[in-house]
Every structure is written in C-alpha cells, then in structure tokens.
C-alpha cells in the first residue's frame, strides 16, 4: 500500500497562516505518498546506460508526484480554500469491519456464514438500522448469494464452514 488512511488530517483547527487547509493537507499527504514510493523503489535498479531499469519509471513518477503534491500544498498556503471536511467514523468503521471479516472468514467459514455476518456487521454502519427487517433481508440475500455464485455462475467457493463439511 502506498497510501494509508491513517494519514488523515487532524480535526483540530488549523493555524491561521494556512489559508486552504483542504488543499494543504491533501498536498502534504501526496508528498508523503511520493516519498514512501521513492523509499519503496529505492532497492530497484535504475538507468543502465540509456535503457530503463525496473526502478527508473517508479522513481520518475514518484518525483513527479512529489512536485505536484508540493504545488497543491503551496496552493493551500497562498490562496483561500475550503476548510477540512467533516469525517464521520461510524460508517467507515463498520463497513471496513464487514469487509475485513468477510476476507478472513470466506475460506474457513464459507459463503453462508461470512456473507450473513458481513451483512449484519455493515448494518451497524448507520443508526437507522431496524434489526428485524435487516435480519430478514440478510437471510434472503445470503440464500440468494449461496445459490447464485456457486451454482448458477459456477464460481468455486466454499459454502459452509470447513469443520461442518469435513
């Protein structure tokens, strides 16, 4: 990964001399990504005479991104721009949990369990969820997926947990 969401900007009020915090932070993160890419590709061979090595193009574009990120950050310094947008945590957190759970569970637990559980986990993402209807829809969706993917489409994936099948 060359970009991590943990590099999110702080929620605190930015100092006054940053006139466009949205651009400024955006540019800073791009610079960080570019530096990360430069570091990650530093072990690769570079130019070999006039032929490109594996590392030439990545470093070229990383430097380009570095420059562009700096330009975006400077824009945020010298001209008035949008403030930082508000981030909410509930939606991203539960949707990501559902995705990660699915990825971990699909092999050992199979489609039925992991699909249904992911459905319920992601439903936590909004306070508006009504649990009875969510359960019913979740069960229907799981049955539908269990029929659609392995049988109708013939995609190989385990349906039930390994310890039950064996």
């Amino acid at each position, binding site marked *: 990964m*060359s970009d*991590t*969401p943990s590099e999110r900007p702080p929620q605190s009020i930015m100092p006054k001399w940053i006139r466009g915090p*949205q*651009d400024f932070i*955006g540019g800073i993160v791009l610079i960080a990504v570019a530096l990360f*890419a430069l570091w990650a590709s530093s072990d*690769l061979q570079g130019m070999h005479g*006039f*032929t*490109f*090595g*594996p590392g030439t*193009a*990545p470093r070229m*574009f*990383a430097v380009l*991104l570095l420059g*562009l*990120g700096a*330009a*975006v950050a400077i*824009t945020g310094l010298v001209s008035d721009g*949008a403030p930082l947008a*508000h*981030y*909410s945590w509930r*939606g*991203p957190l539960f*949707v*990501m949990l*559902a*995705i*990660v759970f*699915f*990825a971990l569970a*699909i092999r050992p637990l199979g*489609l039925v369990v992991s*699909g249904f559980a*992911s*459905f*319920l986990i*992601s*439903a936590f*993402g*909004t306070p*508006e*969820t009504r649990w009875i*209807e*969510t359960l019913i*829809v*979740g069960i229907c*969706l799981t049955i539908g*997926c269990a029929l659609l*993917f392995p049988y109708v*489409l*013939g*995609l*190989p*994936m385990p349906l039930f947990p390994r310890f039950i099948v064996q």
Partner: protein
Amino acid sequence: MADLFHNLILGFSVAVSPVNLMLCLIGALVGTLVGVLPGIGTIATVAMLLPITFGLPPVGALIMLAGIYYGAQYGGSTTSILVNIPGEATSVVTTLDGFQMAKQGRAGPALAIAAIGSFIAGCAATVLIAVLGAPMTKLALAFGPAEYFSLMVLGLIFAVVLAKGSVLKAIAMIALGILLSMVGADIETGAPRMSFNIPELAHGIEFATVAMGVFGFAEIIRNLDTGAEMDRDLVQQKITGLMPTRKDIMDSLPAIFRGTVLGSVLGILPGGGAVIASFAAYTFEKRISREPHKFGRGAIAGVAAPESANNAAAQTSFIPLLTLGIPPNAVMALMVGAMTIHGIQPGPQVMQKQPDLVWGMIASMWIGNLMLIIINLPLVGIWVRLLRVPYRLMFPSIVVFCAIGIYSINNSPVDVVLAGAFGLIGYWLVKHEFEPAPLLLGMVLGRLMEENLRRAMLISRGDWTVFLTRPLSAVLMAAAAALLVLAVLPTLRRRRDEVFVEG
C-alpha cells in the same frame, strides 16, 4: 465496402445465435438492475458483475459484458431522471432537464426519449465502428512506441481538462494512478516492485479491485455520512404515459442527431470521451436553441442530446481499444481484464485473427441497445420500486455483493481487503476534492505508458526528443500541450462550469 457488409453480416450471425441473444438480454437486464441502485455507477457495476461472465465462452462473455455496460449506463440515466442522482459523470447533465421533466409528471417521455436517443446513437456508432475499424487498424501499423506514448499523454491530458475542479489536483491524481500501476512485477526484468514480499501485490494491483474500492465502497461510506435516509427526492407521482407526444419527438429528433455526431467524434479520443460528449452536446443544444430559457426547466432536447451523445461515445470508445489496444476509459479497461482472462490480447491482431469475436461484439452492441428499448420501457415501474428500497437495507447488501465479487475474481481474500483499503482512500480523496476518475485512468494507462516509454527510449538510444521529432508523435504532443493551455485559461474553465451554474 463489400468487406464492411461481410464483416457486419458475420457479426450479426454470431450475435443472433439464441445463446448469445440470451446472454445479451441477461446482461442488459442485470446491468440495468445494478445500475439503477443509487451510488453504483457504470464502473462499479461492470467491476462487480465481471465474475459472472467467467464461466462463459469468450464471445459470450464479451457480449454479456457489453450488455451489462449498456444496461448500467441506461440504469444511470434512469436514476438521473427519477431521483436526480446521476449514476456516473456521463449522466450528470441528464439530471438538469430530466429530473425537471419528471417533476412535471413527464418522467415517462423523458425515459423513452433517453432510450430512443441512445438507440439511434447506437445504430450510427455501430456503423461508424464497422467503417473505421479497418482503416484505423492500418493507422495502428504506423504507430511506434513513441506515438503510443504520446497518444496516451493526450488521453490523460484530455481527462484532466474534463475533471471538475483544479487541473493541478487532477494531474496529481494521474501521477498517483500511474505510480499504483507500477506495483508488482516489472514488465521486462520481472523484478518485484514496491510489493513488500506480499505475493498478491507481486502480480500487481488488480484494476477491478481499485475500481470497486474507489467507486463502490467509497461511495457507500460517503452516503452513510449524510445518514442512510439521504433525501432522495424520488418522484412520487405515478408514471403515466410512457410514449412521448409527436411534439416531443419533433423537438428531440434534431437534438438526437446532433448529439450522435458529437458523441461519435469525441468518443474516439481516449480519456473519457463520453463525459465531454454529453456536456458538449448539452451546451451546444442550449446555444443553438431558439428557446434557451427552457433548458433546465424540463426541455426534452436537454435529455435527448446528452443521452444520445454519451451512448454514441460509449460505443465509439471501443475503436481505440479494438484497433490500438488502448483502453480509453475505465470500463474499457475492465473489458481488457475480461479479455485477458479469456486469453485475448486486445489490439489490431484480434481484428484479423478473431473477426467473429470482434464483429460479434459490435453487432451485439446494436442488439443490446434494441433490447434496452424493448425491456426497459415496460420495466420502468419495477426500477422505480427498486429505488424505493431504503438505503439502510440496500447498502449492506451492496457491501456483501461487492465483497463476494472481488473475492471471486482471483479467489483471493487479500484483494477484498485491498478493495476495502481503496474504499477508505477514495473516501479521503473525496473529502479533499481529489477526483477519483483521473486516478483510475492513470492506473489503466500506466503500464502501457511505461512499456511504450521504455521501448521508445530503447529504440531512440536514450534520445528524449524522439517524441517531438517523429511527426505523428509531435502532432499528438502538440495537441496535448494546446489542451493543457486551454484548460488553465480561465475563460474556458468558466464556460465549462456554466453548464452547472445556469442549470
């Protein structure tokens, strides 16, 4: 000329076989079904449905994918008109007049004209592909690595000009996309690049994974921000009278033809031709109209022109893919992915070696358009009901479906996690007003660009001026430079934004 008919007949004989007709129909239906769901655009739809074509023979798979693509696009227009939510960038302008028409109780005619316009545009574009296919393939022979590289630069600059907001930020997104495309094994030496010994990364980051993360998951998270019950001002009136009146048809026919011509021309250019096509068609129509004040208040020409233009462009965008092997947009890149899975390398060779595949697909585009008219007009009621499903039930289903879809592409759990990570990145990008579309295009073209850049450098023995000394390449580079200058000129930017301001 004889060749042309021969090719088209060959194509239709492939496309009208009962199995392929069925696949086209299913594709169009499923594509519309998913495309209608709010927050899932064409790209996410095609990415999500990609795995369902894996078990099919190559021709059938591509025909079905083409059907899904058109279905998704039409689904996007449907939501633009009925809910004022454009499925993707190409149907943004459709919301301006389409939703106004729906509010006036004329959703039926608006939907009908969108379908009819798309069909007429599709007919014209199909013929154009057939006509241009052979000469373009010859042109491709004149293309060396330097020309390929310059053409892709032109395409990327084109995408920058189209992106909303800052040109600088759009270029930064392209650079980031290209950088992402370089993760994985080096083309020439096979050396693992920036992959940190993770085997899944060593193969490179799957394009469908990024597309699904940035356009699928990110969109869901973003929608949850505003609360699941986002104010979807769904048109509540019953949709009565689908058929447009005679006056509607008279008003929109010329607009359809102008939109078709504009769209066909702009679609051939790489870099998101379909988006500019719908914008250009709308602005043009408004400018030459005798009653410009009616635009934005439910003028039917304001629906007909952009819808025909984006459909024409969507089809002619197959031309660079089939003749040069360059995917001009993200959906075409997914098509390339599907082709590679079936062992087909898109480019001039396919045209010669597998004419049944190419022409079968072209013919099936036309049939797909016809099917959209036939199936969608009666089914509008069902799509409307689908739009009434509350988002709190819809979004967990989309999450699960996307997760299963990504997993089944490579049977890889890591891909699912990666897509989730890209979902978060996409969310962050949106919060900082970075456009995800140029990022995706950079990723699409990145590998091809690097390959051709390296080859060009090798051939020219390290001489960078090769891009300016070869005439064809110089022309492309000059065009790219001119576009970039135009993009930063304030007058053009203002004009580009005025479509929205006045709307």
